[in-house]
């Protein structure tokens, strides 16, 4: 089934290629000869041993160097190493000449090994593609009768078309997106979402490719061909993430472009000028110049930065967080402002009854029964939440009857007749219309009042029910965790009324709240927050002038507007990715949360959190920061060592051995450090 493996790992199943095995043999052989040369250094065997070691370790390097000259590609590594070793030979430093070639080969081998193994482990991480699919095909019975039999056919997931019926047995991966026609099961979504809790599915539910069927056999109707299925999109996204390069990567390749020629020029000058000026022997200076040549390779730097970023992106994928480019990972590391959409991001995005307040002398169950009955014919989300709550609450106390003469009073509520009473159910306006007083309510949310008619102009107030879109359990925790990471600005954007928005903002500890925003205003609010970070952040709703002066208020006034300091941190916007695509696009980093199963969200965002779990924001911020720190460590460390050895070499205090360390040793250390990014949790 080799062809059906994830594309990322295609042809890379063996960490060791044949070439690498050959390299090991060469390196070992040259190493043994080199050591022997040392042991018998006062015999006549010394020189032949060194020559043999040199040739075994360096023949291809020399060959490539010659080819490089023919193709007018100077300053290529092979060329530099060859010249450096020849220079060392000229100076009579045979062991050094062999060391340059031998350790260059060791470094190269190690680089390949590290890169291949990290590629492979990240590919394994994304091993979400099913290797085959079992298609169910109806065929006519061979006995000639008209009855049909269903046969199972093993096909590649790519061969499936919408409408096909497939069988997914327990333990198998879902090959393409589809809908369950028969059977029920639970699905392991961990590879996609990082969530360990299985998802229960029944007939009619959609199944997402890349998940693993755990318990029951499913007959699934294919709804999308493989290339449009979630699994293909996710793989494509992860594979192409590293083509959007981070600024740090661009910097390092640009640096490398100037670094090598400059160091080579310095080496030339060092070899020529001091001897001409009459300071010491030519061979001494040549030896020092050769030290420069050995150090002039920028590979450690150039390899360690993309490797770290790639490993960081891999770490995030394992957590069910897809980062669409190294650039976004870098931007995320320096995010100073997190802006959140309220509904569906900070909150659950669905209404629930949070409080039931019966009027004096009324039983709660009576109030709930009447409200449930009255609202049972409405399609409004608030009504539905009351009905759901009421049915649950009254489950033991008997059933709820059906209302008669049901009527909706636009913008106010409903009226109906229930058990002989005229019932009114609705908002403050409705109650005032009935000449009843509206009680004070401190609980935040929408209030649904219930009243009944006693006589012609007399009504009785039965109480009210508070319905609210409650914050997620871990929203407050996440906000404080982000603050602990030094992210001071946390902004909430919402179309909700000021009071509701402020209360939620306060309870979650957000530093700023923009409320009563129309959908289009959110982009303006983000822009205000982005430009506001370099001026005084005092956003007074210009975007929403028509609404009222209440939009754009500050919840924790002390925290937010006090800071007028300049900062160049980025702004990340977190939304559900479905109706906030323009805001996602406008922010420096657009993060869609709970995107599992939503193609639109996956398309729109820069960073996709598959699970509906807000705490992943902390995870991804930590991963981004740690990855970038590793990149910087590598850059600083590699440059510091290289410059130090060049400085020492120029004045004759460093040997060729030190130069070999500065080249190969630094590369190995930088790569090992980069691989740490793969294990961030």
């Amino acid at each position, binding site marked *: 089934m080799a062809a059906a493996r994830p594309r990322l790992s295609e042809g890379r199943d063996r960490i060791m290629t044949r070439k690498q095995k050959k390299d090991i043999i060469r390196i070992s052989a040259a190493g043994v000869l080199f050591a022997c040369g040392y042991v018998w250094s006062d015999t006549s065997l010394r020189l032949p041993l060194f020559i043999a070691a040199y040739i075994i370790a360096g023949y291809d390097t020399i060959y490539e160097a010659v080819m490089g000259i023919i193709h007018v590609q100077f300053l*290529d590594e092979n060329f530099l190493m060859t010249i450096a070793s020849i220079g060392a030979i000229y100076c009579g430093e045979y062991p050094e000449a062999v060391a340059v070639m031998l350790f260059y080969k060791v470094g190269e081998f190690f680089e390949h090994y590290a890169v291949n193994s990290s590629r492979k482990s990240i590919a394994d991480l994304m091993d979400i593609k099913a290797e085959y699919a079992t298609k169910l095909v109806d065929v006519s019975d061979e006995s000639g009768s008209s009855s049909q039999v269903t046969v199972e056919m093993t096909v590649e997931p790519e061969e499936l078309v919408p409408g096909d019926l497939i069988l997914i047995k327990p333990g198998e991966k879902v090959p393409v997106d589809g809908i369950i026609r028969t059977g029920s099961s639970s699905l392991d979504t961990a590879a996609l979402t990082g969530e360990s809790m299985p998802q229960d599915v029944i007939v009619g539910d959609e199944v997402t490719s890349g998940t693993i069927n755990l318990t029951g056999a499913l007959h699934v109707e294919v709804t999308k061909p493989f290339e449009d299925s979630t699994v293909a999109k996710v793989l494509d996204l992860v594979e*192409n993430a*590293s*083509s*959007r390069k981070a600024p740090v990567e661009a910097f390092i390749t640009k640096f490398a472009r100037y670094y090598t020629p400059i160091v080579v020029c310095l080496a030339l000058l060092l070899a020529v000028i001091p001897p001409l000026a009459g300071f010491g022997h030519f061979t001494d200076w040549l030896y020092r110049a050769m030290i420069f040549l050995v150090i002039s390779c920028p*590979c450690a730097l*150039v390899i360690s930065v993309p490797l770290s970023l790639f490993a960081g992106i891999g770490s995030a994928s394992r957590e069910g967080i897809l980062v669409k480019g190294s650039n976004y990972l870098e931007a995320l590391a320096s995010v100073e402002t997190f802006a959140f959409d309220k509904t569906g991001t900070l909150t659950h995005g669905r209404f629930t009854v949070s409080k039931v307040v019966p009027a004096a002398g009324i039983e709660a169950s009576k109030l709930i029964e009447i409200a449930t009955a009255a609202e049972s014919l409405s399609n409004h989300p608030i009504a539905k939440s009351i009905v759901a709550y009421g049915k649950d609450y009254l489950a033991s106390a008997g059933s709820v009857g059906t209302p008669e003469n049901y009527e909706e009073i636009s913008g106010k509520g409903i009226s109906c007749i229930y058990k002989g009473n005229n019932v009114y159910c609705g908002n403050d306006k409705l109650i005032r219309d009935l000449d009843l007083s509206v009680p004070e309510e401190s609980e935040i949310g929408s209030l649904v009042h219930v009243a009944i008619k006693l006589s012609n102009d007399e009504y009785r107030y039965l109480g009210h029910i508070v319905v609210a879109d409650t914050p997620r359990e871990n929203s407050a925790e996440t906000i404080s965790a982000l603050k602990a990471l030094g992210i001071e600005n946390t902004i909430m954007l919402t179309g909700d009324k000021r009071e509701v928005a402020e209360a939620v903002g306060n309870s979650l500890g957000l530093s700023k709240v923009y409320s009563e925003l129309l959908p289009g205003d959110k982009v303006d609010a983000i822009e205000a927050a982005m430009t506001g970070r370099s001026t005084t952040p005092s956003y007074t709703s210009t975007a929403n002038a028509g609404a009222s002066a209440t939009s754009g208020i500050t919840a924790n006034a002390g925290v937010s507007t006090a800071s007028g300091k300049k900062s160049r941190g980025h702004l990340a916007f977190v939304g559900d990715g479905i109706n906030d695509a323009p805001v996602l696009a406008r922010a420096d980093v657009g993060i869609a949360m709970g995107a599992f199963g939503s193609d639109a969200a996956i398309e729109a965002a820069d960073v996709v959190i598959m699970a509906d779990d807000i705490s992943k924001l902390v995870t991804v911020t930590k991963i981004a920061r740690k990855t970038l720190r590793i990149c910087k460590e590598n850059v600083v460390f590699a440059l510091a060592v290289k410059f130090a050895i060049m400085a020492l070499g120029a004045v004759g205090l460093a040997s060729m051995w030190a130069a070999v360390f500065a080249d190969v040793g630094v590369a190995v250390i930088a790569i090992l450090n980069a691989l740490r990014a793969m294990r961030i949790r």
Partner: protein
Amino acid sequence: MKKTFKMENLDCANCAAKMETAIKKIDGVNDCSISFMTQKISIDAEDDKFDEVLTAAQKAVTKVDRGTLIKK
């Protein structure tokens, strides 16, 4: 038009950067990005010149490292 190809035997990160710079200079190329980690090259070039660009790109790649191939 933007197309992505796999690369073979792309062994050094610095070479990848050199190839990228060289390909960007080819006439008709709008943008080019080589990902060393995923061994992929994406070339954004004018539609009518794409074939020529691809040939020139392979030449530029060969010049930096003879063993490296753009797989079509």
